């Protein structure tokens, strides 16, 4: 051991040295020439901040209704075009450690809220930019993060203050649709946003549990197929399976179908225990053959006897079983995936049956219509199962001009679904277009003036950081950013002083002639916005706290 330590001492550059009581050096971090690097102190902080800002710069131009998309080329040369912050972050394969933290931040927002994944990263970038200046002034990172913390609290309080409650009911879905449209306005589906917003709202309400105010988005399946036009995107009250009916000559359309949902294959049983059947005579062979035939007949008979008119099987079945099913006039779908099978069971009220013997009439699912639909000139076919017993599971079927558009539309729909879900859970909203950020910025600034300690700087830095969102919005829309923001802020203050109410001013990205976000119908959910602030602040604090980075170069 000692020899090794000596050797290391001799051969390597020593980065961190501590000494024991005899004055012998203890090597904490062995830093040799093979690419291990270590950065400490202010330099480390600055490096981290720089990396995070770089990432946020990349997505910054995607913010807002006039934000631009990114084209991402994967290591396998697949192309994705997207506007969704989380997807961009996910697919750009960031190597830098801090960059990865930022990716996680975006993912956290995606998991929790589903929308605002770009905004949160942009906000983080703004916070860190400001923090860097404070560090330059010589303010300790911890003090900065403490200041950010209290500023965040002020901002969240302000958010709750300016929040409006949207009144919606089953008969008045308009507010929900408007909010979903705000989300969709920055995406490629812009052209059809009204239609898609309506689809999303309907889908969410179809699966929502309004008493518990909960929505299980797993019940909404988003299925896509290139072809058709985006206008053909539709909501299917049931399930769409990307499968075809197993035998070309089975019935392709079934009315009032009774569906058997099976997880057992159409095969002779396969005991889990390892076994061998030894055949030693011709008789035995024949018996085995008969037994096999019997199995097949029995299985089909059990299905038929239960009264099923459609069999959906998780596994495959071979030609013989397939044909037996057909002669018995039992259409079947094979290789249905586990998730689809579950959805199917939920939608049709079927029980998933693991054994043929357990199949009975009451375990069958009911669907008003099942039909196989072909697309275009290719052999692609899909099975639509509609008018299910309890339409608790629905499918949004997306069409579009090419694979990338369909994929992007699916992502956009996911965002819109999340937003509508959030509204069902909590119907409070704030206004978009940078309005919420601007209000918070003003509030934080005000609060800062009442702080006598060094935290004052952190608070006012936070206030300036919040401005980054309206500025980015204005920049992306081709407006004079600083000018727009200052004039907005001044008007807001003047108006607020006059009548002491909240005015919904924001950046007029779409050049529609009004700055009133309420009139423009730009809504965002309160929880989404709050989450953005909290997550971004947390992440900024975390990055500020790091003062030592030890890196192993993976390429070495």
């Amino acid at each position, binding site marked *: 051991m000692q020899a090794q330590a000596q050797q290391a001492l001799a051969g390597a550059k020593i980065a961190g040295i501590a000494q024991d009581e005899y004055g012998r050096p203890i090597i904490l971090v062995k830093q040799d020439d093979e690419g291990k690097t270590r950065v400490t102190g202010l330099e480390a902080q600055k*490096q981290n901040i720089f*990396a995070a800002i*770089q990432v946020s710069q*990349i997505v910054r131009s995607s913010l807002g209704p*006039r934000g631009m998309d*990114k*084209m*991402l*080329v*994967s*290591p*396998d*040369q697949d*192309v994705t*075009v997207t506007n969704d912050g989380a997807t*961009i972050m996910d*697919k*750009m*394969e*960031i*190597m830098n450690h*801090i*960059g990865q933290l930022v990716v996680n931040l975006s993912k956290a927002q995606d998991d929790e809220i589903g929308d605002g994944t770009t905004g949160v990263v942009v906000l983080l970038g703004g916070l860190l930019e400001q923090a860097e200046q404070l560090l330059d002034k010589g303010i300790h990172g911890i003090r900065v993060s403490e200041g950010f913390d209290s500023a965040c609290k002020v901002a969240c309080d302000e958010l709750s203050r300016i929040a409006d409650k949207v009144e919606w009911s089953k008969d008045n879905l308009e507010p929900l649709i408007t909010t979903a449209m705000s989300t969709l306005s920055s995406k*490629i589906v*812009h052209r059809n946003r009204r239609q898609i917003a309506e689809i999303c709202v309907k889908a969410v309400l179809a699966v929502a549990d309004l008493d518990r105010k909960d929505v299980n988005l797993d019940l909404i399946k988003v299925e896509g197929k*290139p*072809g058709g*036009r985006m206008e053909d995107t539709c909501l299917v009250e049931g399930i769409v399976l990307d499968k075809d009916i197993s035998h*070309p*000559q089975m019935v392709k359309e079934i009315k009032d179908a009774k569906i058997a949902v099976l997880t057992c294959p159409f*095969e*002779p049983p*396969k005991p889990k225990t390892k*076994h*061998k*059947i*030894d*055949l*030693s*005579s*011709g008789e035995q*062979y024949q018996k*085995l053959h008969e037994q096999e035939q019997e199995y097949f007949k029995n299985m089909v008979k059990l299905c038929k006897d239960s009264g099923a008119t459609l069999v959906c099987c998780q596994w495959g079945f071979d*030609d*013989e079983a*397939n*044909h*037996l099913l*057909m*002669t018995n006039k039992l259409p079947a779908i094979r290789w249905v995936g586990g998730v689809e099978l579950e959805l199917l069971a939920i939608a049709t009220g079927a029980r998933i049956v693991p054994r043929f013997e357990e199949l009975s009439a009451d375990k069958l699912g009911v669907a008003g219509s099942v039909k196989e639909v*072909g*697309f*275009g*000139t290719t052999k692609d076919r899909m099975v639509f199962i509609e008018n299910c017993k309890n339409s608790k599971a629905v499918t949004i079927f997306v069409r579009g*001009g*090419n694979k*990338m*558009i369909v994929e*992007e539309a699916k992502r956009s729909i996911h965002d819109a679904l999340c937003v509508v879900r959030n509204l069902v859970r909590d119907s409070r909203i704030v206004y978009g277009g940078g309005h919420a950020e601007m209000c918070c910025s003003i509030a934080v600034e005000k609060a800062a003036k009442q702080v006598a300690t060094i935290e004052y700087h952190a608070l006012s830095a936070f206030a300036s950081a919040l401005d980054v969102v309206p500025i980015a919005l204005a920049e992306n829309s*081709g407006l004079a950013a600083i000018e727009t923001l200052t004039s907005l802020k001044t008007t807001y203050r003047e108006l607020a002083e006059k009548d002491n109410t909240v005015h919904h001013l924001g950046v007029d990205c779409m050049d529609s002639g009004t700055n009133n976000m309420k009139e423009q119908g730009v809504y965002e959910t309160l929880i989404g916005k709050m989450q953005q602030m909290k997550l971004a602040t947390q992440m900024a604090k975390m990055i500020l706290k790091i003062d030592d980075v030890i890196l192993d170069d993976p390429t070495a």
Partner: protein
Amino acid sequence: MGEIFKPGANLQKGEHARLSSLIGAISLADQVKTTLGPRGRDKILQSTGRDLSVNVTNDGATILKNMVVSNPAAKLLVDVSKTQDAEVGDGTTSVCVLTGELLRAAEELLTSGIHPQTINAGWRLAHGVAQKALLDSSSDHGSDAAQFKEDLLNIARTTLSSKILNVDIEKFAQLAVDSVLRLKGSTNLESIHVLKKLGGSLSDSYLEEGFLLDKKIGIGQPKRIEKAKILVANTAMDTDKIKIYGARVRVNSIAKLAELEAVEKDKMKKKCQKIIDHGINCFINRQLIYNFPEEIFAQAKVMAIEHADFDGIERLALALGAEVTSTFDNPEVVKFGECDVIEEVMIGEDTLIRFGGCKAGEACTVVLRGSSQHLLDEAERSLHDALCVLSQTVKETKTVWGAGCSEMLMARAIEDEANKTPGKKANAMRAFAKALRAIPAIIADNAGLDSADLVSQLDAEISSGSKTSGIDVITGTVGDMTDLKITESYKVKSSMINYAAEAAEMLLRVDSIITCAPRERKNPHGRRGM
């Protein structure tokens, strides 16, 4: 410091990204645009595979599919073309060219400082106007059978005019229409079997009323059957395994083994007997038939045909009105196929089996003859395009005038609308109109005509109220489409504009391109190539 991506990754931003994506797409479109129109030219594609096989084609989708493009924007264009191919089957070049022209027009606007999203907003308006104008200019003869057939023939002629089948266009148009009409409204083109046989000339091609199967009849079996009763099956006729897990044979003497073998043989014999007991005189199996069962069938004077591939079997089942069977215990419920005669025929040097006078006439076979494999391949693609368009037209019976007529109508409608639209969007709309006008110009250019002159003449005609004028590239004048009968499917045109607009919008929205570090490949050809 500051490197956040993996080594080898690349981030292009702003102008660079825009340049890379616009130029990429435009140059790809320029590659294929010379194939457009009746006087368009073909491309030779040489594969990078070891055989360096050569492909001569005029079909946009085929060209794009086989070109190895690395530019991400160009890839998107390839995908658009593929979707057009899958959806309607034709217009695969046009969709790509129109996207390119849209982007070219957008580039100009971008350099004059208009925000991409403003262009998109204008395009969305223009697209709506274009679709409406297209719908207005369409005519629908779906209810009038004779007129509709005439429409179909015209469409087939228009589609085929730019392809290799141009040589005998009347014949092939008729052939395509006939075979599509046999489908009776179904769009399942699988039931039209296109058989390519080397030799003869293209004009020797014909539509076989019956069904041709490119297989051999088993040895020693009847070569000609009249009033055939056919069983179409998909079953193992080699070794019929018992599908019970874990079964294995363990014997202690050779005699026992022989006994088992005999039983196994017996089982196959029984199976054959069961099949024969259906009272059939022809048995067609998807899978192999081994010598032993083949012999049994020969003895029973049953014609046995093995190894009809899966599509073949489905088509056969359709043609003969039979069902594909796999079990043989219930002869009473099985639907047999019937046809008047089964015989061997010779085409060129090959023997094929012909099923004449089939019960259900939905499926049919088109026999293509030609002097080289490349010619045949291209002929098949051309015919496929025509068949796709026709089958889609049967579903959506609206038609529009071709030869640049509908493009010009749309362009005119957009410009009229743009004149009423205030703001920068109007510029974008005009750009859209300009892109649409580029299509007839390219067609004229490809024919060696003075496109600038012709297009302005045509525009004057259209502006003065004509709804049927178009460019006659053969004579090089502006003509009336009602006389020239250049008709196109509404669906093809509509989806072409739709896809092109969507793709162009998507590309225009891009402001950065992030290329991840390519995955390291372990030399795929490895040691074998050495």
